[in-house]
């Protein structure tokens, strides 16, 4: 039986680890939050008291953490994964982080004979529960093959993008587009509504036209048009506004380091930051639509 050390069993990590368990993997779980470790134990996993304990006997280590600093901290240092794991262990970081951070961790791991792939996911909590996440993998072909069975236990679409860091690059590019699209769809539908045109009909028209996007078809920001969209469920996440802000921020930071001028992505990032300041931080990112509510005033326009 393949033994997995799973670090980070939060809203995404716990259902992902649970799917590993269901598919016959032996999972030892650790999280900085003791409550999360308890929940993992209740789900049938072995609880670990530290990251080092979680990875000590593992064949594969999976990490699912909130940001680049968390990932670098989990892998580095005396009690970190790189020191604690056995030589030859395969580490799969499924967090969404800066691709440069993935490459730094991979290089440090390689120095100790530890293998590393980045494998960020798309699909949010519902698809984490269903085991149907999209997973984009960066790493060597050999490491990808070694990771595949575990990844297929958590996701439906597992794609090898390229060398280490490439999975994160694909993820950042995807989230930049999804984030910008949600703002664009929200703005467009506010205009349609302003003219009194039925948003349901506009959705049907756009779905067959050049403005069609995944965000509109599956995550429609306007409530009541798509049954499974967060908007129809009071904007319960889904994928939180603050996380979208963070992910677009990673893309904007990457562009700065690559010397690429960007105009739309930083603007969208700031719209999410504004939405966050208006109490939508922990709502689904498509709640940006509610923030774009027209004023009721009579000021001249």
């Amino acid at each position, binding site marked *: 039986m393949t033994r997995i050390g799973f670090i980070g069993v939060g809203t995404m990590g716990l259902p992902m680890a649970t799917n590993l368990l269901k598919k016959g993997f032996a999972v030892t779980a650790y999280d900085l939050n003791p409550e999360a470790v308890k929940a993992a134990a209740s789900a049938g996993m072995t609880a670990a008291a530290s990251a080092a304990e979680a990875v000590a006997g593992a064949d594969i280590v999976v990490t699912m953490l909130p940001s680049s600093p968390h990932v670098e901290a989990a892998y580095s240092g005396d009690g970190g994964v790189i020191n604690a794991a056995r030589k030859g262990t395969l580490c799969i970081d499924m967090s969404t982080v800066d691709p440069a951070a993935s490459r730094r961790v991979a290089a440090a791991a390689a120095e100790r004979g530890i293998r590393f792939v980045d494998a960020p996911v798309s699909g949010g909590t519902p698809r984490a529960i269903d085991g149907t996440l999209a997973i984009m993998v960066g790493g060597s072909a050999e490491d990808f093959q070694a990771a595949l069975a575990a990844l297929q236990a958590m996701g439906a679409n597992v794609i090898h993008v390229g060398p280490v860091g490439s999975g994160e690059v694909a993820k950042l590019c995807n989230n930049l587009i999804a984030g910008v699209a949600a703002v664009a769809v929200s703005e467009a539908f506010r205009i349609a509504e302003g003219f009194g045109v039925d948003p349901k009909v506009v959705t049907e028209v756009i779905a067959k036209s050049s403005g069609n996007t995944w965000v509109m078809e599956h995550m429609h920001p306007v409530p009541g048009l798509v049954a499974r969209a967060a908007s129809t469920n009071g904007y319960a996440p889904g994928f939180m506004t603050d996380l979208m802000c963070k992910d677009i921020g990673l893309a904007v930071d990457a562009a700065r380091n690559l010397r690429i*001028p960007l105009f739309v992505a*930083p603007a969208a990032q700031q719209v999410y930051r504004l939405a966050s300041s208006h109490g939508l931080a922990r709502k689904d990112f498509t709640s940006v639509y509610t923030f774009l509510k027209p004023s009721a005033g009579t000021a001249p326009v």
Partner: protein
Amino acid sequence: METIGFIGLGNMGAPMAGRLLEAGHGLVLHDARPSVAEPLVARGAHWADTPAAVAAATRTVITIVPSSHEVRLVFEGPQGLLSALAPGALCIEMTSADPSATRELAPLVEARGAHLIDAPVSGGVRGATEGTLAIMVGGPAALLERARPVLERMGKNVFHAGPVGAGHAIKLVNNMCSGGILALTIEAVAVAAKAGVDPARAVEIIQASSGRSNASDYKFPKFILNGAFDAGFAIRLMLKDVDGYARLAQEGGVPSLVGRAVTEIYRMAVARGMADLDHTAVARLIEEWAGIELRSKPGDPA
């Protein structure tokens, strides 16, 4: 009068060091490029081969280099300041640096029994030459008072901004104001020109009205309308500072719609090969977009 260590003799550092020399301070100089020190050495300053040699010879060391990267090399590199600072020595870090890097550096200096304050400047080459810089200091008030006589040789307005790093933070904030209002005023004057207002006349009217700023008061007349573009601060440095501001805004959780547009205008200029041009030459980019030139004509208002 105290001998001062001075590291970084670029566009700003050289005239600032010159002011100290004129005031009667002895100077021990270092720069990555020895040739830039020659005019000051000819006036009596001493050359040191390494930052460590500067630290060994002085108890007050000024650093003003291009960015936090060079600050790190000067302090932490081989033969860096940290290897030789005397107990009780005071480092005055005048680079437009990243506040978080400064906050990380301060304890390393303290660990040697020495002190660090950040004291970036505003006022350009003219301010440096005339000794009229604005200097914004981060660090304990007592250290600012110790540094004040030296700072007042170089600047007219010495401000206490707050704790270590606060000087560097307010410097980034100021440069966003400066770079942002410049870009906006250039765009606005282009719009005025397209609407039939002569560019020099537009600047004159803005300057006499509520749109007045450093851009209409100083940069347009001195560097843009006359096509001189030689204020002495490169576009790549402006980009570095407005990007630093964007990081601060992000760290502070402050939505930054205007600031983000400004960073990308300067980044676009760099992407178009304008990195080493003066920051006022961002006008040429906006002029190109608008298809117009914002130069004075004979008979325009002065």
